[in-house]
């Protein structure tokens, strides 16, 4: 698999440069805290901080401070901004990613603890040729999102639900959705999108069976 060196350092330098230059605008409060977060890091050898992560099937070399959360690394070191930071304390699910195929809130996972594990983010959900995952497509078709901030998190939870239970009951779908928060009242549409994707899948399977005969 190809090894990639992250572009993180240059990005972070850029951000810090912006702050130092006084050009910081509205998001600067957040970014400034980010820079102190790195500034406080204990002095550990670069060898210990430079780690390899398996993200979306690729090996990525990345410089990670001990106290960095996975959400942080994905967004600000690897440029994978699909996972969002909502509450940053394990309550909203906007940061949900799969670790070894199981959904986790990446804001509450230390990056160093997922070395040698498989991380999948929303960016890894569509097929290589760009074809959307059936539930992604159904979410588009059924208007399953409004502002879209929660959508990547929901998608990861739904992917896990269907991987383990291809034909979930209404209660099972609702239970799985309870891990993620949508403040735009998208739950009913999301529920319908999941149902539509399952129905399409089942129809497809039946079609394949008919064609195979």
């Amino acid at each position, binding site marked *: 698999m190809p090894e990639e060196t992250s572009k993180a350092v240059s990005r972070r330098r850029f951000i810090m440069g912006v702050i130092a230059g006084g050009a910081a605008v509205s998001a600067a409060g957040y970014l400034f*805290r*980010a820079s*102190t*977060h790195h500034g*406080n*890091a*204990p002095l*550990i050898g670069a060898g210990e901080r430079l780690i390899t992560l398996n993200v979306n099937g690729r090996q990525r070399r990345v410089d990670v*401070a*001990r*106290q*960095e*959360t996975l959400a942080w690394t994905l967004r600000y070191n690897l440029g994978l901004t699909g996972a969002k930071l909502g509450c*940053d*304390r*394990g*309550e909203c*699910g906007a940061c*949900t990613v799969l670790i070894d195929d*199981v*959904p*986790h*809130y990446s804001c*509450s*996972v*230390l990056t*160093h*603890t997922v070395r040698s594990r498989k991380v999948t983010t929303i960016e890894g959900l569509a097929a290589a040729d760009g074809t959307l995952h059936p539930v992604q497509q159904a979410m588009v078709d059924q208007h399953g999102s409004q502002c879209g901030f929660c959508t990547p998190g929901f998608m990861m*939870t739904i992917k896990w639900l269907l991987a383990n239970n291809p034909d979930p009951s209404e209660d099972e779908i609702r*239970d*799985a959705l*309870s*891990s*993620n928060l949508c403040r735009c009242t998208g739950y009913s549409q999301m529920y319908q999108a999941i149902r539509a994707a399952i129905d399409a899948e089942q129809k497809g399977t039946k079609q394949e069976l008919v064609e195979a005969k």
Partner: protein
Amino acid sequence: MSLPSFQLLRPKTLDEAVALMAKHDGEAKIVAGGTDLLPSMKQKLFTPAYVLDLRGVGELRGIRNMPGNGVEIGALTTLTAIEHSAIIRKDYPVLYEAVKTVASPVLRNMGTLGGNVCLDTRCLWYNQSLLWRKSCGFCLKKDGNLCHVAPGGNFCWATFSGDTPPALLCLGAEVEIAGPEGLRRTPLSEFYVNDGIVRLHLAPNEIVTRVHLPEAAAGWRGSYQKLRVRGSIDYPLAGVAVALKMKSGRVEDARVAITALNPAPFLVKDADAQLIGMVPSEEIAERIGELAARTAKPLTTSALTPEYRREMVRVFAKRAVMQAAAN
């Protein structure tokens, strides 16, 4: 919010973990699932020099059935694994009932039984950012010298808010603990301290390794009832577990425990005396509700009023008795 800086320790065996905890005595915090510890560290409630990631210690993960000798659950076992365990669901249903109410499905994928048992106590004035707490002059539990909940007192009422411990108390569970002196075992009922700051009989260098469910409690029927604001994700604001050993429609043995109402989870005293030998009825269930409400000392540590929470313990204890008998 950013995490304070620390050194990360990643032992692979229990011996290594014990040695590291002994070496960094009092300076290291254990992280298991991290769902309680990491948000608290972001709020600067803990700023340990070392964080020990226990999850490399594979021997602490899993559920072991020991026929004739009960079941052992490793501290690192996730709540999802317990929820999906056929043995737990069949033989220790009160634990199954409690586990499936914890947080959300994703948090149960992350959270461990050890973390749930050792959960920090919670309070409106404590689980807040550094800035928030600073603007209120801090409090006894962290960085300050007064209690906003019971001013004038010298006691912290922060509430123990784990869901599995009341179920485990009903089952007569024991915890196994590893420390520099070796392994020790203690009944869960003697593990908690009813003080929001002291919380546990656990030295800073000790590690909870396993929870043991005795064979004698296998097959007891159970129910767990929980009060929370949002049904999808919140911590309990009152919780009642009931386990009944039934024989021909009569109660042969019984335990009732409450959580999220005091700084420690508690077995309800004399509940067994009310239930043993009886056929569960509304009237008896009502009496258990009385006893549970008397054991509860809720104060204004959470979003709902203490009066409401005490009233709901009564209602939930009653429901739990009727449901356990019917299950």
